[in-house]
């Protein structure tokens, strides 16, 4: 693991009117690391995601540093070009199309007249599906997405991130509203994502899922980072106790 962070946030603030959604955020994302970002509703998780993925800009005083260089006019197109890919829950797939059509959507492999090179797309999708750990042998790249389970669908969306040379993959609530086995499948995809050399920001409400995949925890409360540390030997129970501690503090104040 190299020590140069892919993305570094320095004193990032984000306010909507008088309300601070994020306050003085200093956060680094290193290569090959899974960071679980947890916190209650309104803690600032999604705002933070939007800033990293470029869909929203921070307030003027903060800095976003990518590969040791400060970026200006950060946008989602720029973020994608720099290898930062966001996988949104349920928003990213066209269910009636095939898996390979979905994987390559918007970035089709075509000849110069725009006709899709199906053979190549199917081959690459097959490789991807193996890489990400598709255990089901029923599906081929030609299967349409509406036959897949929720977990498998997430897998398709995640495999897109692998394909396009991304380095930092942001997964926004990838296990929400999923049955246990499906969620387990997604967590497996996430670990494989790390094995293929990607960094992952895993955003979740579910402390067990967040604990299971993480190398490092970042806990947000009311727009501030209240905890940022490695998982180490912390058990799931310890982690949940930690979450409760911050939540309680929040209630008292």
């Amino acid at each position: 693991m190299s020590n140069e962070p892919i993305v570094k946030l320095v004193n990032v603030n984000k306010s909507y009117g008088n309300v601070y959604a994020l306050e003085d955020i200093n956060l680094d994302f290193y290569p090959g690391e899974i960071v679980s970002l947890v916190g209650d509703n309104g803690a600032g998780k999604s705002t933070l995601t939007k800033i990293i993925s470029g869909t929203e800009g921070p307030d003027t005083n903060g800095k976003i540093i990518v590969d040791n260089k400060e970026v200006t006019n950060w946008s989602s197109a720029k973020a994608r070009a720099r290898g930062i890919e966001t996988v949104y829950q349920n928003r990213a797939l066209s269910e009636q199309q095939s898996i390979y059509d979905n994987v390559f959507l918007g970035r089709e492999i075509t000849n110069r007249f725009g006709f899709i090179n199906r053979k190549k797309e199917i081959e690459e999708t097959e490789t991807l599906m193996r890489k990400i750990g598709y255990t089901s042998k029923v599906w081929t790249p030609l299967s349409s997405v509406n036959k897949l389970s929720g977990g498998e669908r997430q897998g398709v969306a995640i495999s897109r991130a692998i394909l396009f040379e991304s380095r930092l993959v942001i997964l926004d609530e990838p296990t929400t509203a999923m049955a246990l086995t499906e969620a387990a499948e997604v967590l497996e995809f996430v670990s494989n994502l790390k094995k293929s050399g990607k960094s992952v920001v895993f955003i979740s409400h579910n402390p067990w899922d967040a604990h299971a995949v993480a190398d490092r925890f970042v806990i947000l409360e009311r727009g501030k980072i209240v905890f940022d540390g490695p998982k180490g030997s912390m058990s799931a129970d310890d982690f949940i106790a930690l979450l409760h501690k911050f939540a309680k503090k929040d209630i008292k104040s």
Partner: protein
Amino acid sequence: MSEKKKGILIPERYKPVLGAFIFFVVMLSAFIASSPDVFLSIGIYSAVFLSLPLFAIMGLSLVFVTAAGEIDLAFPSIIPLSGLAFAWTLQQTNLNFLLATIFSVVVGISCGLLNGFLVTKLGLSSLITTLGMNFALIGLCNVLNNGAVRTFEELNDTRIKSILVGSFGPIPAQMFWMVLISLVLGMIFHRHKFGLHVRVAGDNPEAGRAMGVNIERTKILCFTLVGLCASIVGILGILLLSTYFSTMGEAYLLPVLAAVFVGGTPVTGGKGTIGGLVIGATTVVFIQTGVVAAGLDGHWTSLGFGLVIVLSLLGHRKFSGRLTR
């Protein structure tokens, strides 16, 4: 799963085509059984092939719009309006075919663009917008044409007419144009990235946008394609009869929509089939021609249409199993 139970492996995407084809064969068998002497002679097929291309070419563009999750009901008026542009220019320029074609295509495309803009940029419902445009455009057409019937006897022996709507043996020339246009549009719909974007636009436009697909532009192009095809149909229709009259588009609305749905393109958007459309159009035109040829009153045509549409929808659902919700 349903594939395995039946013991035959048909790729999902060919099911609607096969369904439409089985339906056509059943219908044809029924016709042959009812009056064999008519339906085993070549005459009836020549008659079908005469008008089939016009319905099919129109329907092809409707597959794109329908798959994109929209509908276009304005084409029955774009046909006579762009046809008027063609006929008028022919008269004004002493039969300058090229100029007339260009003007007609420009009119057709403009109407399509207008529909596309109204639907995507202003966010209006395509059903209501194009229904309104259907009235508006036929009104405009009637005002401009003022009830004239324009005849072009002098076109009868020209080479251009024999190339476009002449005949090769028993097969009308327009059949070849239909096949050619179907192949091109089929390639675009099923193999080109534009076709994929059309289907995504009808299925989950948000997903397309998130991946950088320009959904609005895709939909506008679909409406434009309807305008283009309407103008082609207008031109072929005028050449076929050597006559222009402003009611020439009236007969298209229901048969063309029927062809789209009988062909296996679902009204819900997200997918469609070009091969199915051609078979669907053949089915529909066959009913029109066949009912009359079988010696039945023309009113039976409507009854036939109704039955075919409902039965074919049931058939498609049965065929694609639990996937059609």
